[in-house]
């Protein structure tokens, strides 16, 4: 087990290194740097000025070297011009001698955001916690619902209940977040269409709409059903269909297994067969799927946060990518990749624990 873990973690680190380097490379291509120079210094710089700005701010060094700087394994650049020593790790006004030699991710220095004018680590921490809250609610809604749907429809394959639930889950996997978000807003959060005008007329809701079309207020004035309902539903809906399909497939397979026949012919009632014999076997496969669903959820989060204007991690990612905020974007990718790899690890370990066949051998 330990050997397996170590191997797994080593692969993870290797993957993380590769991926961050790719992101680093792509975000530090010359056109990006030129754009950065223009936005930082002056938009009307000449090409020569741009080149010298890049050179002066340490962006001219070889790519691999700068990646090492960013990681914190290579000493940061220093440059003495007109008697003033500046450098990657030297803050404005700091004595160069007192500055640390290396400053990178490993030292906890994630850089400074050019868009938000704040340290990246601070932005990431704030926004990540906001997204965490959203994800938590999504999970609370999504996992039990989808498992229930999957088990109910897979229990009796081909029954009317199965048909109905299957159509629902197929429909929900066919509805990406940007579609379901639009449809849900039209239905519940529009002052002109959907059920809100009618509800307001009846006097059943105090505001103008049943739900709020944006979730911005959730961060300032706390989460309510009113401002959080739609974003959570939008993300959950897409996942529910997918997980329910997986659970159903796994459940129908288990229900046709011979040991289910054995149990039935032992005289176990149908309900007990489902609960005692089928469920555990049927949940092994969906577990992996749920965990691997995280990267997909990340996608959904970006879309939903953009659509509902919720200033979380996904929204930040879009801002960083759209505004060429190199260090923020790098940090965002590190976090994203880390989340994905962690879930893969957890899903592997969890699979082993759920499945006695693998555990003991």
């Amino acid at each position, binding site marked *: 087990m330990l*050997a*397996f873990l170590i191997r797994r973690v080593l692969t993870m680190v290797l993957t993380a290194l590769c991926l961050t380097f790719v992101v680093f490379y792509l975000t530090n291509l010359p056109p990006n740097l030129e754009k950065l120079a223009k936005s930082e210094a002056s938009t009307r710089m000449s090409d020569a000025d741009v080149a010298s700005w890049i050179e002066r701010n340490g962006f001219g060094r070889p790519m691999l070297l700068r990646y090492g700087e960013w990681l914190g394994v290579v000493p940061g650049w220093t440059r003495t011009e007109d008697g003033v020593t500046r450098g990657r790790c030297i803050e404005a006004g700091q004595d160069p001698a007192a500055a640390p030699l290396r400053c990178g991710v490993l030292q906890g220095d994630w850089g400074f955001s050019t868009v938000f004018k704040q340290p990246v680590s601070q932005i990431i921490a704030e926004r990540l916690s906001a997204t965490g809250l959203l994800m938590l609610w999504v999970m609370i809604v999504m996992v039990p619902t989808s498992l229930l749907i999957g088990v109910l429809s897979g229990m009796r394959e081909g029954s009317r209940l199965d048909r109905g639930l299957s159509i629902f889950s197929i429909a929900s996997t066919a509805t990406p977040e940007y579609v379901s978000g639009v449809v849900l807003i039209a239905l519940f959060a529009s002052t002109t269409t959907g059920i809100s005008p009618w509800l307001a007329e009846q006097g059943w809701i105090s505001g103008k709409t049943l739900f709020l079309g944006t979730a911005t207020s959730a961060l300032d004035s706390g989460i309510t059903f009113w401002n959080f309902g739609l974003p959570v539903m939008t993300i959950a809906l897409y996942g529910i269909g997918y997980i329910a399909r997986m659970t159903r497939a796994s459940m129908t397979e288990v229900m046709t297994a*011979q*040991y289910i*026949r054995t149990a039935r*012919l*032992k*005289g*176990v009632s149908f309900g007990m067969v489902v609960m005692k014999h089928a469920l555990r076997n049927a949940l092994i496969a969906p577990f992996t799927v749920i965990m691997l669903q995280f990267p997909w959820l990340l996608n959904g989060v970006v879309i939903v946060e953009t659509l509902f204007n919720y200033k979380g991690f996904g929204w930040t990612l879009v801002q960083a990518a759209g505004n060429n905020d190199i260090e923020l974007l790098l940090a965002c990718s590190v976090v994203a990749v880390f989340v994905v790899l962690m879930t893969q690890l957890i899903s592997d370990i969890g699979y082993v624990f759920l499945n006695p066949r693998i555990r003991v051998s």
Partner: protein
Amino acid sequence: MTATTDWDPSKPILEIENLSISFFTRLREIPAVMDFSCTVMPGEAMGLVGESGCGKSTVALAVMRYLGKNGRITGGSIRFKGRDLTTMDDEALRQIRGSGIAMIYQEPMASLNPAMRIGAQLAEVPMIHEGIGREAAWKLARQIVADVRLPDPDRILKAYPHQLSGGQQQRIVIAMALMSKPALLILDEPTTALDVTVEAGIVDLVKDLGHKYGTSILFISHNLGLILEVCDRLCVMYSGEAVETGAVARVFDRMRHPYTQALFRSIPLPGADKNTHPLVSIPGNFPLPHERPPGCNFGPRCAYFQAGRCDAQEVPMVLLPGGDRHETRCLRSAEIDWDKPPVAARAVARTPVGEVVLKMTDLRKYYEVSGGLFGGSLKKVVKANETLSFEARAGETLAIVGESGCGKSTFAKVLMGLETATSGRIMLFDQDIQDIPIEKRGTDTVSSVQMVFQNPFDTLNPSMTVGRQIIRALEIFGEGANDAERRDRMLELLDLVKLPRAFADRMPRQLSGGQKQRVGIARAFAGGAKIVVADEPVSALDVSVQAAVTDLLMEIQRKNRTTLLFISHDLSIVRYLSDRVMVMYLGHVVELGTTDQVFSPPYHPYTEALLSAVPIADTRVTKKRIVLEGDIPSAMNPPPGCPFQTRCRWKSQVPGNLCETVMPPIRLLAGDHQIKCHLSDDVLAGMEPVIRIAAQ
């Protein structure tokens, strides 16, 4: 238990009357069982025998009322202790399942819940049916596990199914069926997935427990030998109908239905010989359920068929004179001379054996495997083949016999060049090929060593026509100058394996198992193979088809003077067709000699047990019962010394701990008969034959 009071123990436990079962698909109704009747008395063991697709398993599932969504009982009744199961509601059925009637299935691994401990699965039964507590149920489970002769019951109760071997799993399934002391036990091919020596133990167990608990048994099998060993009465089924039923001994000795007779003539019993007494295969094919002929279902394949009579009417079951409830579904049962020997028993001259074409010397094949999912550092060596030495001559049939894990498949892979040998030599004609993988072998070498595979449903590419697959082999072997020539050659090959030429354009799924196997043979002989490795070529086929395919192989062998390496676990067929036999156990050749030498004493102790374990469908044969203890050890972790020492019943005859410590040498007995054993010459000479045939 309910409603047992008004049931008289002298009445039948199970009475099936005129049962008809159909499966309903979108297109049509497919009758699976028609007009089936049978009676099981208390304490009686009833056998249901027939080829695959004859409806025997459907009958069993109908008794359990578990036919799935599409299956329905369309007529007749099934009475268990006087109560009709066909009209029973779900709750009453649930109470009978498991406590009144219990069932044991073919695949033990699949019948056990992989995520539940053995103990919990066993204890569940009495907890449901007798309402006893968890503690008491586990105690009962422990007792029954001991009853099915499993070592260390406490450990087993806590284990998961995958931690047990196949034989142990099947014992657990039996234990589970016995937990509530059912009145009727249904066994559906309970040993088909197991090795012969393990099968013998299970059969013994079932018989003993049946007597001990007074349980009636419905035993379903395709193996007539097993039926003879286990059952009192039997019912032969063909294409959804019972064709003959009666006491086992009477049906075996005085069968009165042409199908039963044909079945017995097509299986290799002791005394059959490929040259003097060849098997008689049943012509034609098993009819598909929706293409049954009018009148007698067996009519088109029957030697006694009379047009206008047998196909004019539905044939009823008739009671034969002589009592003992012997019935047959044949109009002509009184007219046929049943004792007339089979016609056209064309004897063939023995093929002379030619020069040595294949010689293996000290061949070894070791595999390195990493230890499981988390291992990596732990490398284990599997010794799949150890010091294999033998010669095979042109025109000879050499049988390689052994159970799973004995290394016979690895040997085939090394010979074919799919793997290279770890050490030793393989001489093919005058060429060393042990180190040459197949990609580096010349076309001549490749086409001269070919293989026939075991599973007919797997041996042909499902998405290519039959003709195309044979032509491809011809292309690869460089036969024929152009497409037209190759096509002609392909049609000739179809003639050779006695398939209609129209089959060239068919897809494999349109062929029956036997026909696919014939295509496989045609493909193997496409390049004029000199050596053919046949890896259990008939073991997955129905009994009546086996004979035809075996005969075909023999015939082509005679014609081409091919060397046939016949890999099998079935000693009956080996005895029938092979010239020499090589017995393997855990990668070692334990015995090698002519067929007569191997099948008569002195034996290697393993050969002796193997011979005893094979069920023989002949009432004249008496066998010495030798049931091996335990399972075959894993090739990953072989025992020290002699590989067979853990299960050998002769071990006490060897002084000291020689068997546990020293690998026995190969000993040459009279007439080049080789045995790998420590037993002294005296002990070997004193061995008695396992099989005796009573004088006729």
